[in-house]
């Protein structure tokens, strides 16, 4: 039997965390990718090109327009009989929908899988990543979300999977989508960015994040923040990197004015290279940083932006 992956998409392209979920799924069996939504032909075509996808299922219906949990879970449950595993990236949609699917199937839910031991045995972080638990399911069917940072995404090109429409039955949607207020940004998404520049409490104000923007512009980076910076109201919550925010693992993570609370480290310690800029040389962030610069960020950031420009 095959495994089914619910793909995150924006209507035309497949999001990077979903490509990591496909990579994880490939370790478990033949991968069938589910593209659900309304008007998703473009995303389905993109899904067919993903390396490692054997078949693309398209569920295109008005009831799935904003992928509300109730109709999306009902759809997955209707498809479940053909699959040993149902998985998704641990994105907002994956976290919202997959536990509902698990309960409807009366099986445990396995969140944020970071390692696959065998078809029923998975490694996942607990206590904000301060411990790793290996768990084994006794059920024939597993429902899980995958921590994207732990699996290299499959290439976006290289596959040529057939696309087939699935019959979407009556999907009740008791809830109604009202509106979306998405942060307007020309930057890459935090969880998909190759470089992330994050600010913490040390930034001291919302205005100071413009200093980070200047560095991020030079590096094509996403801008993140610690929970302390979010709590202080410097930036919106979707900037938050950490246990209660987003988990990222970019090639380069630059932590500026971030002390390095456990909860923040949980969200970025799998980054390939970590840089810390902090005026307190005792800050715990230096214990995980590959390169540490003890400096006043209000001087260092403009210098960094200038140096990046100069040496380009």
């Amino acid at each position: 039997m095959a495994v089914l992956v619910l793909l995150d998409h924006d209507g035309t392209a497949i999001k990077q965390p979903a490509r990591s979920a496909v990579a994880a799924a490939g370790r478990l069996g033949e991968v069938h990718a589910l593209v659900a939504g309304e008007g998703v032909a473009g995303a389905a075509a993109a899904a067919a090109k993903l390396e490692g996808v054997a078949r693309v299922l398209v569920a295109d219906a008005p009831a799935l327009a904003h992928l509300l949990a109730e109709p999306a879970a009902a759809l997955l449950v209707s498809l479940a009989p053909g699959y040993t595993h149902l998985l998704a990236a641990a994105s907002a949609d994956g976290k919202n929908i997959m536990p509902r699917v698990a309960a409807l199937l009366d099986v445990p839910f396995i969140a944020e899988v970071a390692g696959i031991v065998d078809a029923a045995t998975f490694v996942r972080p607990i206590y904000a990543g301060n411990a790793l638990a290996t768990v084994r399911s006794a059920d024939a069917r597993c429902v899980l979300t995958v921590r994207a940072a732990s699996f290299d995404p499959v290439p976006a090109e290289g596959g040529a999977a057939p696309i087939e429409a699935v019959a979407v039955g009556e999907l009740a949607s008791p809830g109604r989508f009202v509106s979306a207020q998405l942060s307007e940004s020309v930057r890459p998404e935090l969880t998909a960015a190759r470089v992330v520049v994050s600010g913490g409490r040390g930034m001291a104000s919302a205005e100071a994040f413009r200093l980070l923007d200047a560095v991020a512009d030079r590096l094509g980076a996403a801008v993140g923040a610690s929970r302390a910076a979010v709590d202080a109201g410097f930036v919106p919550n979707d900037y938050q990197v950490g246990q209660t925010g987003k988990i990222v693992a970019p090639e380069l993570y630059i932590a500026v004015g971030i002390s390095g609370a456990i909860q923040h480290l949980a969200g970025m310690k799998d980054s390939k290279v970590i840089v810390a800029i902090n005026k307190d040389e005792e800050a715990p962030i230096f214990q995980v940083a590959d390169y540490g610069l003890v400096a006043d960020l209000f001087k260092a950031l403009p210098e960094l932006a200038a140096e990046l420009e100069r040496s380009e």
Partner: protein
Amino acid sequence: MKIVVPVKRVVDYNVKVRVKTDATGVETAGVKMSMNPFDEIAVEEAVRLKERGAAAEVVAVSLGVAACAETIRTALALGADRGILVETQVELQPLAVAKLLRAVVEREQPGLVIMGKQAIDDDMGATGQMLAALLGWPQATFASKLVIEDGGLVVTREVDGGMETLALPMPAVVTADLRLNEPRYASLPNIMRARKKPIATLTPAELGVDPAPGLAVLTVVEPPRRQAGRKVETVAELVAKLRNEAKVI
């Protein structure tokens, strides 16, 4: 309308957890335990709804060992009216908790269940969605704003890249994200008052639920440690290292 708020007893947010040497779990003996922070936000939201006249009663429910009654007391001190303890020695996992909560909800018939989006111990983030599924109720997870309007809910949710707003009929399950509110501190008079509020005790058997875990926890180990690197003296040196040594820019 009645609101049910499930609250979980977890290792306190500020405790640095230690993995047991026999790799069976994390050390909880002699460790400070508190209410899961996200559940505290859920309690606060329920109490505010009651204070605004949108709810008549707030019932706090905790599941687990007898000491979970302390967690219920905390909720009562924050303004919940009464408590229900579902007492068991079994290590509860989200699906079992959801089944037990369904049984409690069927008895209590609330119009709304508000709970934390995840517990900071197992980081599963599943129980709210599972409870909604078992009840056949709509759900709004990761809520940062909740309004009761014309007998329905309008909930703003934290999603990737921003926020979205949903309208849901009630009854429904809402899970609280960080910015839903800032929980109050319990005042001394309210802590005293909470001692007199009732807590009923039930068992999984009385609720007709088998609480056995579906997942076997094979090992719990420490994650690999990251080695501290080195300090650089100047911004120019940093950029040079990133370019020539780490080759990431």
